[in-house]
């Protein structure tokens, strides 16, 4: 991982004509080589933020640097350095996968001999070799998503932007897609900025996260650090019913924040469960109590979101987000054919 910044924004904001404050204040920094998750419910301003970072929407206030370039001052140079996977599939269904990739290469000024090996490599990586010469309109949802990735990577961008890339995929398809993304990051050394409204996605995939709600960043950090902020992990210990009360004993173990008892089950809160389980077990042993069972619960981002916003996180109604994306270009959203 490099140490340079791939993306930096300062108080980035966008108010659409008509007064919709889609993004109010977004300041964040993404390091080179990271997978950065941009998490938020529908209508939070994720697509608008990505559109500003990718020069498709002009910020109303604030600044954004992408690959060291100002998105307003040098939009063409920024475009040369980035790859983009939209919420909706944008490959041309009448063209084959390979033709779509050749088109992308040509648009970035690559000639045939530059394109060829790169396209073969990406087709192999994305498991699209067999489908490469078939028209994209016959591809499955998962294949289309992989092709979008391949198309976005043809010109070897430094930064890849993915806007809700797994929307519309089934759980298996999503898990598969994550594997391809991790693989890309490993092999192509590309920084990835991805938006999502799936909590599990950022937990499993992203090095760091920003949570956006109503156009404002409400938290940034690693998924662990965010969880620590809402009380950290919970270690649950089950002891024989005949045991003496252990509340004080457990509370005295270094690192323990809070102990609560429910019959023979103790709940021990601590910032991180690692390294605290064996001291807990030893403390019980010292009291002559043999532990019958241990479980560790990590808080979900669900709870993080609830704690930060006071609202439960909902995963519904993605259609309005799609409509908003297309309407920025005077078009109407249309679901894939």
């Amino acid at each position: 991982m490099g140490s340079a910044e791939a993306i930096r924004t300062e108080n980035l904001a966008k108010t659409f004509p008509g007064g919709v404050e889609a993004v109010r204040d977004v300041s964040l920094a993404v390091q080179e080589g990271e997978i950065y998750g941009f998490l938020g419910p529908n209508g939070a301003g994720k697509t608008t933020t990505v559109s500003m970072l990718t020069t498709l929407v002009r910020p109303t206030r604030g600044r954004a640097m992408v690959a060291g370039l100002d998105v307003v001052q040098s939009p063409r140079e920024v475009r040369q350095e980035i790859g983009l996977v939209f919420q909706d599939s944008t490959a041309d269904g009448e063209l084959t996968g390979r033709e779509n990739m050749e088109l992308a290469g040509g648009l970035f000024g690559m000639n045939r001999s530059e394109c060829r090996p790169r396209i073969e490599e990406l087709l192999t990586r994305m498991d699209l070799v067999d489908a490469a010469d078939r028209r994209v309109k016959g591809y499955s949802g998962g294949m289309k998503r992989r092709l979008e990735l391949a198309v976005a990577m043809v010109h070897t961008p430094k930064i890849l932007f993915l806007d809700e890339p797994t929307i519309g995929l089934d759980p298996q398809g999503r898990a598969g897609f994550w594997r391809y993304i991790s693989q890309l990051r490993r092999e192509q050394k590309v920084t990835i900025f991805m938006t999502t409204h799936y909590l599990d996605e950022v937990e499993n995939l992203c090095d760091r996260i920003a949570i956006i709600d109503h156009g404002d960043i409400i938290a940034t950090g690693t998924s662990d650090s965010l969880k620590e902020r809402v009380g950290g992990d919970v270690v649950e210990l089950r002891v024989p019913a005949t045991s003496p009360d252990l509340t004080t004993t457990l509370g005295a173990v270094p690192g323990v924040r809070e102990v609560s008892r429910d019959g023979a089950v103790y709940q021990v809160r601590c910032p991180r469960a690692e390294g605290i389980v064996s001291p807990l077990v030893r403390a019980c042993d010292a009291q002559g109590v043999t532990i019958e069972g241990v479980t560790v619960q990590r808080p979900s981002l669900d709870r993080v979101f609830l704690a930060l916003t006071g609202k439960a996180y909902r995963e519904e109604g993605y259609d309005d987000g799609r409509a908003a994306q297309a309407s920025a270009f005077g078009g109407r959203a249309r679901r894939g054919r």
Partner: protein
Amino acid sequence: MFLPLRSLLKREYLRWVRAPTWIVAGLLSPILYLLLFGQAFDLGKLVPPVPAAQTGLTAALLGAPNYFSYFAVGMVGLVAVTSALFAGTGVIFDKQLGILQRTIATPVRRSTIFLSSLIFRGLLVVLPIFIVLGLALGFAQIPGLAGLTVTQTIGATGIVEVLVAIFVLAIAFTSLFLAFGFLFARVESYFAVVNLLNLPILFTSNALYPYGTSPQWIQNITAYNPISLAVDVMRENFFGSTYYAHPAYVYLGGLVVWAAALGVMALLLASRALRTK
């Protein structure tokens, strides 16, 4: 600029060759016009075969030896409009499918995107025009069929004037309809406006029938109609300048002004549609 332009043109071409119905229908309709309307209707038959009346007919047909010859040249204008009608639909579909957005997100110049549409759609206008002219000339060689008879010897200048007129006419109408493609988000709105324009453009021209009989105000419009201007360039070269107030290049000049104006309008609407919001 060259590599991106070539890639965009190749995409248009691939989409085109993969829609055979579209191609066949597009090329067949002008042929049907020529075969059906052109053969069925002969304005000359309405005129009594007396010398005075026949001279009047020749004047009305601006020197053309028969109505089919007059009409076949006018068909160039009709085909230019009817083929260009669809020029803006591709842009609208690209908007709706996000393909335009994907293109905008690359370093390709906005003017290159516009140019690729103009070139490809323009070629789709020029192609049926040449088919129509070729067929009409061919018909003249087939006994029993009305055909386009050229009465003048056309020099190199004449050929250049005719070819330039055809290309410039194609640019003018392709620009016009492309502009609406960049303007509208929906095919329905697009065709509503295009259909509204389509007939007035055709019927205020002298493409299909002599306009000596129409009221003066219509004649004034007709004289400046881009179709009339293109058709005048061709008819004057094919049938002689007796009935024309100006040499052909004057009409050609007028047509170039039209094409430039419509081209600039389309470019402005395109850059408005493609700019960062």
